[in-house]
């Protein structure tokens, strides 16, 4: 206790700066992905420099977070986990009670900036599940599975009620992946999936009308030619007309002539597919697969259960983003608000994803430390 907090903080930042403990292959893949994202945004936003600059600034901020998070050892994260989880859940309740937002009450106004607690939950959820399973005997039995199920259901329910189905899906998936990676028996997984299938009619009953409409519209886009059906039809035309080789950078007509709505945010991948074709799609999916694979590799290298489960769950939930957004753009899945990671324009989700990668960097750096 000789050091003041000031000198400790100074030492912390100096260490971050002089010896960043990052995994180079993962960092390199992320830089490439961000570059592709900015280029696509430049084209989709019709050369709007302010749009690209804003996104680049967020990537910078995310990079700083990666460096900072990489210095926080997983054991410290594990100690904070229950508090982070309780804190985020309380924030979700606060938002539910007095939140404000456009259409959906998911923002909390902090005076200087608006903040979305559900974004925080994307990271705290796998942390909490990993924290819970860490000291227990694995593979988990029904009792632990039920507890984990409750840990997932409470925040996911609060988020789904906002209503933000996309984020609720991502949060649920992150928790579920941690459970999957903990070695939950296949027959138990099969039973749970069967039960979930049986819940579909009940879930349908509790959905908002607009959510039902989205699913019905996906099945028959022509039924809603003005609203979501229009999005789906125009998005598929964009993708399909791209062909194998694409129309070329800045040559996509669908977004340029305003046929494609939301073409810088949720539907930006349609612009990408139109301009770079199937080859571009395959290339970027390989890049995504590499990132996910590298995350799982880092997870396998880790020594303790908490780090393993957390790293694996973060990597696997990255896949959910790609699959849900790519499937939505291609008319395979209903329209839900899930962005294409690092490509869609949007503030908090890019930053929170990069914070997650910062946690991975820390797990990578501490792979030799035995707990």
């Amino acid at each position, binding site marked *: 206790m000789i050091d003041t907090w000031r000198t400790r903080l100074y030492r912390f930042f100096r260490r971050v700066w002089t010896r960043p403990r990052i995994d180079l292959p993962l960092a390199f893949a992320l830089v490439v992905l961000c570059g592709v994202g900015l280029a696509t945004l430049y084209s989709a936003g019709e050369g709007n420099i302010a749009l690209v600059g804003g996104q680049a600034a967020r990537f910078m901020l995310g990079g700083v977070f990666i460096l900072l998070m990489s210095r926080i050892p997983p054991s410290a994260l594990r100690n904070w986990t229950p508090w982070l989880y309780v804190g985020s859940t309380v924030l979700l309740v606060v938002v539910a009670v007095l939140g404000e937002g*456009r*259409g959906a009450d998911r923002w909390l106004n902090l005076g200087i900036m608006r903040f979305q607690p559900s974004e925080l939950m994307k990271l705290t959820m796998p942390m909490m599940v990993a924290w819970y399973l860490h*000291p*227990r*005997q*694995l*593979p988990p039995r029904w009792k632990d599975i039920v507890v984990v199920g409750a840990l997932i259901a409470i925040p996911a329910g609060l988020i789904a009620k906002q209503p933000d189905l996309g984020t609720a899906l991502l949060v649920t998936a992150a928790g579920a*992946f941690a459970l*999957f*990676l*903990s*070695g939950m028996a296949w027959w138990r997984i099969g039973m749970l999936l069967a039960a979930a299938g049986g819940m579909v009619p009940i879930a349908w009953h509790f959905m908002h009308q*607009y959510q039902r409409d989205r699913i019905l519209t996906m099945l028959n886009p022509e039924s809603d*030619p*003005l*609203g979501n059906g*229009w999005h789906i039809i*125009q998005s*598929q*035309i*964009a*993708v*399909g*007309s*791209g*062909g*194998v080789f694409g129309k070329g950078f800045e040559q996509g*007509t*669908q977004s340029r*002539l*305003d*046929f494609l*709505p939301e073409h810088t945010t949720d539907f930006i991948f349609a612009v990408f*597919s139109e301009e770079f*074709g*199937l080859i571009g*799609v*395959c290339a970027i*999916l390989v890049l*995504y*697969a590499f990132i*996910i*694979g590298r995350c*799982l590799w880092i*997870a*396998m290298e880790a*020594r303790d*259960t908490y780090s*393993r*489960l957390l790293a*694996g769950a973060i990597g*696997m939930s990255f*896949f959910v983003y*790609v*699959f849900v957004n*790519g*499937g939505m753009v*291609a*008319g*395979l899945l209903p329209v839900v608000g899930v962005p294409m990671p690092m490509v869609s324009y949007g503030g908090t989700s890019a930053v929170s994803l990069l914070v997650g990668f910062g946690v991975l960097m820390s797990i990578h750096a501490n792979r030799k430390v035995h707990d």
Partner: protein
Amino acid sequence: MKHLRRFKDTRGEGEMFRRRALAGFALILLGLCALVGRYVFLQVLHHDEFALRSVNNSVKPRAIPPARGLIYDRNGVLLADNVPAFRLEVRPDQVQNMNEMLFQLGRVVPLDQDDLDAFRKQLKQSHRFDSVPLKMRLTEDDIARFAVNRWRFPGVDVVPYLTRYYPLGPLFAHVVGYVSRIDADDMANLDPDRYKGTTHIGRSGLERSYEDMLHGTPGYELDEVNADGRIQQVLETHPPIPGKNLYLSIDARIQKAAEEAFEGRPGAAVAIDPRNGQVLAMVSVPEFDPNLFVNGISQADYKALITSPDKPLINRALKGAYPPGSTVKPFMGLAGLEYGVRTPQDTVLSTGVFYIPGQSRGYRDDQRGGVGTVNLYRAIEDSVNTYFYKLALDLGIDRISAFMGSYGFGRPSGVDLPGEVSGILPSREWKAKHSPKQPSWYPGETVIAGIGQGYWSVTAIQLAHALATFAGRGVPYAPRVVMATADVGKRSVPLANPPAGPSLIKDMKDWQAVNDGMQLVIYGTDPFSTGSGVKLGDGFPYRIAGKSGTAERFSRTSDAYNENRNTAYLAARHRAWFEAFTPAEDPRIAVAVVLEAGAWGAKDAGPIARKILDAWLATQGGAVPPNHPLPESEADAAPASATTTATPADVMPEDTPQSDPPASDSSSAGDDSQ
């Protein structure tokens, strides 16, 4: 098991995780392959089809907002109309420099600060690809000047639309309400598909409460556009379904007469048909011009309305809750009879002051020295406080609040208009909830509740509703302003309004006794009768039953009240009420009038009620039923009814059909004789 669990098999877990991670990755690769499969399906197998659609993709859908339903009075007088107009719209993403563009545009089409403020606010809240209205209701001059300069302003367009117009202006401002521009806060609560292209939404009155019916369903057209997005050709049109038209039960002629009867003095009046709950007139004075709000009210106009001491924007009929004073006495009398506490012949001695046994505080009568021995009839006729003080004590507050509550006091009447207040029905529960410092109930509070003072507060619609319920022999109907709706081009369909329950009255003899007492208020010859100097029934062919009410706004703190009994002083201290229904034997209209600053109920509010009844009579054909000869002064009656029929006819923009043919009137007169 506990013992085993403590020692985790760390090495085994690591191996298990490795297997799981590989399985997970395999599943992910499978998922990505499925995704690639879909892209191959779209980009390779169906590439030709989509490429063709992309090249031919010059067709855009455009929402066509539905025409808003029109609003008519009961005879088809138009109250809310749609008139064609033009507005300027801006597509933000096609404007390079917004400030420069607005500056240049301002030199072609005059843009005032209100337009610019509203535009900038909406600009922040909308997508860059959505058109934002800049200036509504362009003049022909504006359109011509812009057309010449249009090439200088890419992304700016003149767009035709339908705007709302209220031909009768202030007369129906509080009932019909108004529409105004949709803003981002509204959008958050609306179905975006249903409101695509719609610029206005009902903001108050019926425009708000019937928004769902009035709005309609949007249609769309498929437009062929060129590379700039300008429409070349309309390929296909799916017309919108217009909103439903509304028919009010209000008669514009009665409404007009009621409004004029106030002569600008703040107050409210509501007339209801006791047979079905239909509102025949509802006025709140002063009024305002609803047309100001439709295309955005200017700051100056809005400030003037907001700061006006008479608060013209408030619908006093629904939101003005005042102490009801003596207007509750008929209901108190009825409660005494129905609970078996009194018979109509039971008497009470009025000495001028009433004391609760064992207490020294006195409760005053209106006449110093009292009026002597009175039964129920004279108690109502002369509005004798002592009779009702004692009755209230004998009934007790619980029975009073239960009985009054059943007539709708203390809760919204349920009229189909937004923003109604509950008023206050004195009860132990109410006091316990609202007066935490002194939650218990005192007998003195029961005593003054018996004459409509104390905690009481009542709105005009509540009193009209209660009176109509009584007049309709106790059958409660929720008040309704809208009588029927109609799809465009179809016949109107009446809206069902079944009674809310069976008759509240146990014995029709009780009803008759109170009714007789209320007729004495109008026709009584007693020197103390409240209505004796006013002669409210003169020249009216049907029997009227009524009751005045004069409520004090402040408690009497000095003797000034007894010394300055001049009208101006009293008017500043009193609220004047009058309630009346007619024909007394088979009531067809019940009216409640409140005057915010009136000296005496009968003298100041009474004539307003009478004028409303006169106007109603004129709409019934003005026929005199043969079995009810005019009481006196037949000469006065003719000009009175002549003026009331002439006035509404003057203000009506078009010839209005008579609601009832003369034949039906004589048949209803026949009913009276039965």
